[in-house]
């Protein structure tokens, strides 16, 4: 691949460009932005909402492309046209897995859209574990990558605690306020000088405990909320823009939302690199590297789980090794496009922890989800008859009335089983 295929992000750009980040899991992303800020990257999270984003996406992206691409590209274009940023001094960043799902091509679609919108000079940075492109101004070393994962781990912890607090809080908004406080605090800690960052990392366990204690201290009412898990395509699963504020809707129905964390997706990607060697004999070196990273992250996650267990107020997520073990007899680990085998594995993880009500979300016509989502429901239900699962499609024109009615059906069945 030659570099005239794309505009490189050069070291000079790093000095004066603002890098725009699309919204998805905003708490996590804010942390990451703070973290990368310490290395001199000026990044900004886009929080734009509204129909203009969809309209721009539809206009500049092939309408049969998946919904996340339409939203992300629409959001970028919306920001570039808003007048808030100087397009000559702005870069965009997007994560690229490099797998066989068409999501790997989102960056190309984004560039096509930029050409069409006469913004072709705007650099687009591909953030990828595989380093699919060269951007001399945006290079992360191993340590930085690991730091990035740390931020995600903290993000997952807070996200899980917020979800387990919100339905029960007596003073509405307590959990969210605490989340913001901790993000800022962690952001400051991660974002301060290297020394401070080392300290917080070294005292990781204490920090976990402090966060957990804070959430445990929020006054809660004792009540039984129905637990509803959300799995599915990563963007619509996490992004309120993508799923019509699904979490808020479920909360409004009195349910507790359980969402497996974001870090799992990255551990899943690493695990796939290991299997790529095992199944297909590909890239030995990368497999070694992935194996090391995989172990590191699994250990870190287990460490966090342990602190949660010790404290005892909250339901910890399952260790990733356990998630892998649960899926053993369902779908092959060779299925690695999109969410791949992780999707059924997460359904099983939720069921294993007593969350039997599951919303499986996907963009309309998502290819991998034909296989790992809708294609796997029958075998999963056959062997776990108690699982109450509903598949919801998201799309530029799918209406919330349709989606909500189906969700209500799932909730009615959940209440009946309760």
């Amino acid at each position, binding site marked *: 691949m030659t570099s005239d295929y794309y505009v490189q992000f050069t070291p000079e750009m790093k000095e004066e460009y603002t890098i725009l980040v699309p919204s998805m899991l905003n708490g996590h992303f804010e942390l990451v932005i703070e973290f990368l800020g310490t290395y001199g990257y000026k990044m900004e999270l886009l929080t734009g909402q509204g129909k203009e984003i969809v309209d721009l996406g539809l206009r500049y992206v092939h309408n049969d492309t998946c919904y996340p691409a339409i939203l992300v590209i629409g959001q970028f274009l919306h920001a570039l046209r808003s007048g808030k940023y100087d397009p000559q001094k702005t870069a965009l960043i997007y994560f690229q897995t490099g797998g*066989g799902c068409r999501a790997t091509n989102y960056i190309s*679609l984004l560039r096509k859209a930029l050409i069409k919108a006469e913004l072709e000079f705007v650099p687009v940075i591909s953030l990828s574990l595989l380093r699919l492109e060269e951007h001399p101004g945006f290079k992360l070393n191993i340590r930085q990558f690991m730091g990035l994962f740390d931020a995600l781990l903290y993000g997952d912890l807070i996200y899980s605690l917020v979800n387990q607090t919100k339905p029960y809080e007596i003073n509405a908004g307590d959990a969210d306020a605490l989340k913001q406080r901790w993000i800022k605090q962690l952001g400051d800690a991660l974002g301060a000088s290297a020394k401070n960052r080392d300290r917080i990392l070294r005292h990781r366990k204490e920090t976990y405990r402090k966060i957990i204690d804070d959430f445990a201290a929020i006054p809660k009412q004792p009540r039984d909320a129905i637990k509803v898990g959300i799995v599915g395509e990563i963007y619509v699963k996490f992004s309120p823009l993508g799923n019509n504020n699904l979490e808020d809707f479920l909360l409004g129905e009195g349910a507790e939302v359980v969402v497996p964390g974001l870090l799992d997706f990255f551990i899943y990607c690493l695990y796939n690199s290991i299997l790529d060697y095992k*199944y297909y004999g590909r890239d030995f070196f990368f497999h070694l590297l992935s194996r090391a990273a995989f172990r590191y992250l699994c250990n870190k996650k287990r460490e966090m789980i342990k602190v949660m267990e010790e404290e005892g107020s909250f339901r910890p997520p399952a260790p990733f090794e356990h998630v892998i073990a649960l899926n053993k007899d369902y779908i092959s680990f060779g299925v690695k*496009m999109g969410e791949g085998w992780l999707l059924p594995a997460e359904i099983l993880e939720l069921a294993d922890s007593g969350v039997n009500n599951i919303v499986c979300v996907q963009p309309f016509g998502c290819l991998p989800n034909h*296989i790992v989502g809708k294609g796997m429901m029958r075998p999963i239900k056959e062997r776990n008859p108690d699982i109450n699962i509903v*598949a919801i*499609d998201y799309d530029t024109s*799918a209406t919330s009335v349709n989606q909500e009615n189906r969700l*209500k059906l799932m909730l009615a069945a959940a209440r009946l089983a309760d």
Partner: protein
Amino acid sequence: MAEALHFNRALGIDIGSTTVKVSLTCGGQIVFERYERHLSHIQDKTIELLEQASDLLAAAPFTVALSGSAGLGLSEISGLPFVQEVYATGEIVKQLEPDTGAVIELGGEDAKVIFFAGGTDARMNGSCAGGTGAFIDQMAALLDMTIPELDEASFRAERIYPIASRCGVFAKTDVQALFNQGAGKEDVAASIYQAVVNQTIVGLAQGRQLQGKLLFLGGPLYYCAGLRRRFRETLQRDETDCICPDYALFAVARGAAYLSRNLEPYTYDRLIESIRRTDEKSHYERGFVEPLFTDAEEYRNFRERHEQDNVVERSIEDYTGRAWLGIDSGSTTTKLVLISEDQELLYSYYCVNRGSPVEIVLEQLREIRRLCGDRIEICGAASTGYGEALMQHAFHTDAGVVETMAHYTAARFFQPEVDFILDIGGQDIKCFYIKNGAIDSIMLNEACSSGCGSFLETFAHAMGYEADEFARLGIKAKAPVDLGSRCTVFMNSSIKQAQREGASLADIAAGLSISVVKNALYKVIRAGSPDELGEHIVVQGGTLLNDAVLRALELELGRDVIRPEIAGLMGAFGAALVARQFGSSNLLSEAELAEFRHESSVRICRGCTNHCTLTVNRFADGGRYISGNQCQKPLGLDACEELPNLYHWKRERLLALAAGSGAGTGAGMDAGADAKRLRPKRSGKQEGELAVTTDRALGRMSEQMPEQRPGRMAEQRRESPRGRIGLPTTLSTYELAPLWQALFTELGYEVVFSPLSTRRIYEQGQLSIPSDTICYPAKVMHGHIELLLEQGLELLFYPSLTYNIDEGGSSNHFNCPVVAYYGEVLQGNLDALKSVKFLYPYLNINSAGQLTRTLYQALREVDPTIARSEVRRAVRAGYAALSAERAAVRRAGEEAVRYARRHHKRIMILAGRPYHVDPEICHGIDRLASALGFVIVTEDSVAHLAELPQLQILNQWTYHSRLYQAAQFACDNADVELVQLVSFGCGIDAITSDEVKRILESRGKLYTQIKIDDINNLGAVRIRLRSLLGALEAKDAAACRQQRDGDGRSGQGEKLKDADTSRKQRAGELKRTLPTASSWR
């Protein structure tokens, strides 16, 4: 007991998408039940119904619950309790008929299946599903029948046609095509019901058996006995355990009443007040857009501006002289225009097709002949549209004009410099760019977004308005709702949502107009800015006669456009203008018209195993016209030349391979023999022979397979000590068949391929398809597996291939997720696979070592006697066969190109994926194109003849990488065109089609895309390909004119004189770029 008391007086209100149902229970007795359509006046209708029971309700407090899709919104605003309707149904059925096994409930826009026997499970249709009451309503309107008439007609049906059941839009296209072919209303009515049945079973039951007593609930099933009959016949059940109870309409309302029993009691006044409250509280959550017109003044100016673009009308009674006739027999409408010597409009006619277009035109022609009398001589007549050929045969019009050319001719009349034409008709959106006086590129909406024009009308009718009236409402809308831009099924639910949020009808009407426009702009044209469309835009088509739609378009484009006053008649007008070339006409005379008789019948073509359904139209004068054919065979044109068609060639290769003829095994394939097979045969006799061989080969694979097998099997057993292994002939097997065939043969297996797909095979497997939006090639796979199991195979093989073979040049070489992992879906969803061994090992076919290792592991499971060395040998043999086959495909491509150049034929790359050669998947498009005079090659047979162009996307997939190279080949060669086949639901093609288009257009080539699905409607494809041909010819002619002009100025004598010789010369030049066959040996 408080509970019992409350249930004593319980009210259930079920508000669906079209109706309100109310049920009141007192003391265990139903005392009041009513059912009415609400026409979107939800609160008013509900209150109206409740008022009828005011005495009963006012007597004492009662508990109440709302249900239904529109009830959801009402409950949110009114604060009344809500119960989900499927839940309500489930609960009441458990109470009333505890022995029920399953419930099928169809509503206005929802379809539900609830299972009780063997674990309760409830399913609702997804967001892309139209097989419901609204769908039946739409279809009845299309047939110009009431529901009872439709129902009654369905009992007289003699045959059932396949109609797309997934979505109403598709179905409409199919039904129109059936009408245009002359199919009977009775048969269509039953086919519509069958479509609903299939949709319910495939989309909702998804492989789960409907066991035990079956209940039919909901309006459509209650009112339509014919629909119930179709369900019973399809499920092979009788009336004893498959019943529609008398409360079928009220099950949800009763369920809601039952479930309300523990809730807080309401008084009548409080209930009414709560429902009324919604009026005040109504608000828009959703965005709304600027009004179409700010004031009456603006509208007046708008009207005045557009009234200027008109044709002079002249009374036919005053006129004497010559005249020309144009007939546009469209998919939903029929238009006729008669013009005078001075291009004045003498007569025009526009109507929506109700039944046979032949009858409509006949009546009109009689009228025109009568009005003309002896004063006016019709000197020429031309027909265009879907029914172009039918009209030519029926009424002897002098010419048939491709639709696109007719429209261009008409548009040029109003704006000679037109550079963009947008036509929004009832079913189609068409747009053409004009460059240098020729159509440069044509875009048509794919079947999934069509029907926008007729949707406006259907919706207007559903709301109790005429289309015009409804449109006028939109003009005055203050805050049009934003309904999005997608297929009309989605729009239905968007409208539902807007209604729920309290939008007025005017706002919805305006919103719909805006949606139609957005659909055209964003989905079909995909323009980023109006500048891309050009300066002079002419818009036409019946839908744009609607001022609201036109205004929405101008606002969206930000510029004024020309809409001729006869926007709805442009096709016919253009045809009439074309007819002016004639001096005298063969059009049937008044006397002949009086004698005119027409009958149509349906028969199955036995010309080959494709078994096309033919509609034969016979006319009184002995003429006949056949439609529905994919090739020329039924027309008796045996002597016509058969051009090289690599789709056909590849199918034959595969059949030969499957039949075990040995072709493709080993590396000893003779290139000369390939070339001979490929070379077309000119004489009728030889061609017949070829056809016979084809049929025999096909027969061997399909119907006759079980009978033919025993003899062969005995023989095979000796050679195949390891038994039989079955491979489904779909997806990746199309490409890798030689590899697996040679490999398993070498290992001592007898390899059995499933036959080429047919509709029947699809239907055989459709019950276990878990995702209704997946591509057709994947859906068909279920049937292939069933078929192999039927043949008693106990070992099946469809490998999981994350990576395809790396052919170089691309960044990665993946398979698409569906091709790669469909084995997982089959294993998980086909129960029958559990009793046999289905191997879907994860293999890396890029390295012999890896393949040996992983395949060895997988095979050892089923046969421990297999040795690694054996597998290694087999892999080697497999690769030899595969590379021989790949080489043969490339040689065949080169040979076809050479043939085309020798005989001065155009070449068409029918670009898709290897599995698109399947006759059921490509629906004979290859034959159609071949019949139009193209030499057909596949993308993989010519990809090697061009370099991979510079791409703007990441080249992830092996199959798709060939598309880009093939596009480059088309760019490099003037005589090569590319038509891309895209499977509906193939998300990857959203990326590839854009890129292929970009590559082609960067070099001034035309890009044509054809979306294919399970539906076999070639009418639209034919128009597309003919338009392409027309555009190519016009381009050649323009190039030729330019060259002549150039000659005149510069005097370069050796420049070519006509298009044909210019093409010949270009072909000669290009020969040099083509490697000779020897260099490939």
